[in-house]
Structure formats: structure tokens, C-alpha cells
């Protein structure tokens, strides 16, 4: 299954929030939807889920305009919240029923997920008696119980301890292997790098960059070297302004002429006591800042 958003436009009053957002997400893979606060991620998600219509553009499943009666969405909103005063089981079954399940199946599915997330003991408890992390796991059940084709997770790991994060990772991986489209929105870049094969960065209502994460990294200009040395001072003196120090103490050397990379590496090895030299590959964090920072 392939989900395509093509040229989605949306304005609220005078404000143009989305200025032609397009991206493609494939089944069996996770897609990372990134962007700074207020960039238009939530609006894109809401339009995708038919909360309100787009002013222009089209959403397609396998090339055909989406039919909301056939495609089920599972959604974990960034703003978490259920009914605090109601028992866990009542509201989970209610939400599963709203998504089209019959009561018996809904109870069965909810019980399966509660067990899977180690939450069965809280089945009859009121939601507001649970800790924040546990409430988050309950909320996750509302996104998964009805076995949706498209799963949208907005900041799924915030507030989870490492054990619960591990549990959630396994659940997400399982959803991916089952061929679902998983849309992942987070500011925790390490999780995105861990799960997502492709990403789209929304900036100022437009997609700044979109595609396979490895390709994006590969296409990044290979014009910097990372050099680790016991005594970096002579190297810094040698390269002057072209050399900066990274957070971990390694040196980052910008090359005026990337084609002559080999020559520079050779020179470094011959002249100095160097532990490691490699071509700099940007992290997702670097890419994100590059595409969404103020200078753009």
C-alpha cells in the first residue's frame, strides 16, 4: 500500500498554513514527518485523517483518491487525553467501537493490547489514577486496537521510561513488519533514525526535503573530514579557520576543494599522530537544523 499526499493546501483565515505539501509513504516502512513547532505537521495529519478538508490537493492510496470508509487510521495525538474520570476498559472499548468494531471484538482486541503492553491490571481502574507513562500506554491502545491500515504516532516516546520505550519500539517494529504505513512525528531524532527509512521535513508550510534517509545523507556534500587525534593543537594551527572542534573533541576540517580529499588525508597521516580520519556524514539532527534553521 502506498499513501500519497499531493500539493495539499490549507489556509485558516488569512494565514496560509500549508503551501502545497507533498510526500509519499509506503506500507511496511515507517515515514518520519519532521518539522519545527507550528510548521504544519499537525494540520497535515488532520487533513490526512479527514478532520477538515484541504483547500487544494489530493490524498491517494495506491494512486486512487482515498476512500475514508475503507481505510482505518490509528492516531496517537501529541496532545494526549482521554476521559480522566472513566474506567480504562470502558473508554478503550468505546473508541474501538467508534472505529467500527463490534463490542465483542472490541473487548477482545482491547484485552489483547492491555496484556501486550503489560497494563491488564489497570483494566477497571479510572484513568486519572494511572501514572503519566501508563496513561500514555492506554492512549496507545486507542491507536492500535482496531487494527488500522495507517498508524500515525505523534511523539510516541515522550514521557516513557527506557523499559516502556523498549516495549513501544517492539510494538512499532511489529506494525511495520505487518506491512502497515507508520507515520512517525517526533523531535527525538534518534528514534526517527532508528525506525524511519524515509523522512519529510516540513518547513513553513512546504516540504523542505523528502525522501529516503540514506539517500539524503549520501547526497549531502562530502566536503568535511572528521579527525581524531591525541594532540589536536598542531593540526588546528595548520588548518586555521577551516578547522573547528566538535563537541566530542574531534576536529572538523572543511575542504576548499573536496576532490582533493585523498591528498589532505594523506598529508594528515604523514605529518601528525592521527587516531582516526573519516568523511563527515551528517546526523538527522544536522539535516533538520540545516533545513529548518533561521538562515533558511
Amino acid at each position, binding site marked *: 500500500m502506498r499513501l500519497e499526499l499531493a500539493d495539499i493546501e490549507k489556509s485558516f*483565515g488569512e494565514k496560509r498554513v500549508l503551501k502545497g505539501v507533498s510526500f509519499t509513504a509506503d506500507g511496511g516502512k515507517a515515514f518520519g514527518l519532521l518539522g519545527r513547532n507550528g510548521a504544519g505537521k499537525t494540520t497535515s495529519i488532520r487533513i490526512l485523517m479527514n*478532520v477538515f478538508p484541504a483547500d487544494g490537493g489530493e490524498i491517494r492510496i495506491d494512486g486512487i483518491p482515498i476512500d475514508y470508509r475503507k481505510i482505518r487510521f490509528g*492516531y496517537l495525538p501529541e*496532545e*494526549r487525553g*482521554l*476521559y*480522566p474520570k472513566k474506567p480504562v476498559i470502558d473508554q478503550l472499548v468505546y473508541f474501538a467501537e*467508534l472505529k467500527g468494531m463490534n463490542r465483542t471484538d472490541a473487548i477482545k482486541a482491547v484485552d489483547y493490547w492491555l496484556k501486550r503492553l503489560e497494563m491488564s491490571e489497570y483494566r477497571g481502574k479510572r484513568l486519572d489514577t494511572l501514572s503519566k507513562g501508563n496513561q500514555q500506554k492506554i492512549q496507545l491502545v486507542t491507536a492500535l486496537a482496531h487494527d488500522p491500515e495507517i498508524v500515525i504516532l505523534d511523539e510516541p516516546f515522550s514521557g516513557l521510561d527506557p523499559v516502556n520505550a523498549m516495549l513501544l519500539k517492539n510494538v512499532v517494529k511489529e506494525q511495520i513488519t505487518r506491512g502497515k504505513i507508520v507515520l512517525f512525528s517526533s523531535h527525538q531524532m534518534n528514534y526517527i533514525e532508528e525506525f524511519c527509512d524515509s523522512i519529510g521535513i516540513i518547513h513553513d508550510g512546504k516540504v523542505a526535503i523528502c525522501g529516503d534517509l540514506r539517500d539524503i545523507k549520501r547526497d549531502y556534500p562530502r566536503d568535511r573530514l572528521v579527525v581524531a587525534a591525541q594532540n589536536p593543537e598542531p593540526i588546528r594551527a595548520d588548518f586555521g579557520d577551516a578547522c573547528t572542534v566538535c563537541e566530542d573533541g574531534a576536529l572538523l576540517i572543511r575542504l576548499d576543494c573536496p576532490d582533493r580529499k585523498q591528498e589532505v588525508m594523506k598529508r594528515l597521516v604523514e605529518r601528525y599522530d592521527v587516531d582516526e580520519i573519516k568523511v563527515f556524514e551528517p546526523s538527522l539532527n544536522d539535516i533538520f537544523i540545516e533545513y529548518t534553521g533561521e538562515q533558511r
Partner: protein
Amino acid sequence: MKQFSKILKFELKNYCKNKIFIGVTLFLVIAIAVLMFIPNLAAFFSSEEAQPSEGTPASVMLVCAEDAELAALVQSSFAAAFPDYEVKLAAGGAEDAKAQIVSGEAECAFVMDTAASYTYYVNNLSMYDTNCTVADTVLQEVYRTTAMVASGMTPEQAGEILSVQVESRTEALGKDQMENFFYTYIMIFALYMVILLYGQMVATNVATEKSSRAMELLITSANPTAMMFGKVLASCIAGLIQLTAVFGSAVLFYQINRSAWGDNEIIASIFNIPLPLFIFLLVFFVLGFLIYAFLYGAIGSTASKLEDINTSVMPITFLFIIAFMVVVLSMTSGNTDSILIKVCSYIPFTSPMAMFTRICMSTVPWYEIAVSIAILIGSTVGIGILSAKIYRVGVLLYGTPPKPAAILKAVWKA
């Protein structure tokens, strides 16, 4: 449709599990029960109290006049007219009478200037003191009889003339306002209370979902129209259940205490509401309830915080109170055919109360009723759909509540 029934069931269950809802219903049922048992209880207590009161001496009422004959005449007439008093002549004149009252020996005194003029002395004038009214009637009769006898009639003839009774019969060919007044009033008042109470509940319910952010999930799980109609109809059914419990228990307890209430016409008229009127009552009640509940729900969706609800719903509450005032004022003035109430009986927001009042207290042609109900049904559905749209736009707006014009603009675009 499936979603609608799920929402309806869920919301209704919430009402039925709500402790305040159950508490208020129980309280009302108990209050009604106590009210209905009052005649029995009163009879029970008065029968216990009656015995000791017989032994206590009667209060003293003094009569004095310069004319001894007048004094004797007044004393004998008053003795018959005031069986609760021991009527005595005050030998020492007005000053003696006043002194006796102040010292507590006597309760009150009538000091006669002439046969048709007196001063009434009493220590503390009670709000419920009717002695003067009774005395006026008695003295008038004494004066007339004396005058008639003086002009040559026998006391018997005079008595016959004065005691003549006029016989009359009244038949209302249309509606008897007196008979219908009380249940109309009670029903209008019940409608008023229930709409205000439940309207507020619907608004709060929506705003709670919004402020707890459950809305983020709801709005992506269910159709807003199904949400709005499910919520509002659930509150309507809950309201009807509560009213049925309260009025049902009232009827039940009335039947139990029927003999004790005897021929209290007010109470009897309330319980003898004719079936067609009852059906009209139900129709107007349900439609009136729905139209306001939709508005309250829509308003609730535009408030971000629960605290904002009270100010946000103010315009609707005012609209409703004005409608109520117009109807009640027309009712109490007895003029239920004025242009104002006629116009009101076609405007959807006032017609549930206005038209029901007109049907109860005046004669309304069937086509007027049909037109009024048709307008009301049409506008209820219209308001329902509009409020679902406002809901869809409103629930995702956080921050300060938007202005009505801004909401309508957004709804128009959506």
C-alpha cells in the same frame, strides 16, 4: 448511524452512572413524596395538637361605646362573629381598654365612635389579623338591619333582604384558563428548569472533552454530526427519564394520598391533564429541549476552558429567559391571545413555550399548531446541523474563545 447509536449509548450511560444526576433525581422524588403526603401529615399533627388547646382560655376581645345600647348590640354580634374570642364590654371606656391590652389581659379592643365608625386597638398587629375585615362586615350588617328596622321593616324582613343569594353558573365554551393555568405553569416551569440545567450540562460535557484533550481523538474517530446529535439526544433522553421519575412519582404519591387532598382543585387539575395536551407537551418539550441543547453544545465546543463556559453560554441563557418571561407574563395577565405571544408562538426559540401556553389557555386553530410545529422541527434540524459544523470547527480552536462572527465565517468555509 452506527457511530451515532454508540455515542448515544455511551453518553446515556454516563448520565445514568453520574452520581449527581442520580442524587438530584432521588432528592426531587423524595421532595415530591413529602409534598404529596403533606395533607396526611398535617392531619396527623393537628389531631395530636387539638386536644390540649381546648383547655386553654379564649383570648379576650373588648368592646366599648358611649352608647350602652350600641355597645350591647355590637357585643352580641361580635360574640357570634368571633367564636375564638371571649367578647367583653370594657366598663372604663377607651383608656381602660388600652390599659388592659398593654397589660395583656385583653388581646384587642373595638372602641366605637358611632355605629359605622370605630378604632381598633391591638398590641402587636399580626400580618394575618383579619379581625377588622370581619368586624367591618358584621358592623355593616348591623347598621343596615338597624336602619331598615328604623324605617319600618320587621327584623325578619330586613334579614331576608340582606341574606339574598345570587345563583350563577359559568360555562367556558373554549378553554377554562383557571383550570389549565396550574399545569401550564408547572410544565412551562419544568421546561425552563430542564433546558437550563441540561443545556449547561451539554455545554460542560463538550468543553470537558475539549479541555481534557479527549477531543483530539474523538474528532478523528467519529463524525462531528453523529457526535453532536448523539450527545444532545442522550441528554434529552436523560432529561425525560428524570422528568418521568419525578412526575411519575408525583402521580403515584397523589393516588396514594388522593382522599387526603380531597377536593383541592388546583392539585386535581394538575393531575387531570387531558391526553391531547399531554402529547403536545411532549412534542414541544422534546423539540424545545433539542434546539437549545444544540446551541449549548455548539457554544461548549468554542470554549477552551471550563471556566469560560458560564460567560459563553450567557447570550443563549438570556434569550431563553426572555422567552420564558414573555410567556409567563402573558399567562399571568390572562391575555394569551396578544400579538406578542402569537408572534412568539412561531419563532422557534420561543414557540415551544408560547404555543404550548396558547394551546392550553386559549383556542388555537389546528393549522396554526401545525405550522408552528413544522417551523420548529425544521429549525431544530437546521440548528442541529449548524451546531455540528460549529462543533467541528470549534473543538480544534484553543486559546481565547473566538467571536461568533469568526466562527460563522469558519463554518461557512468548512
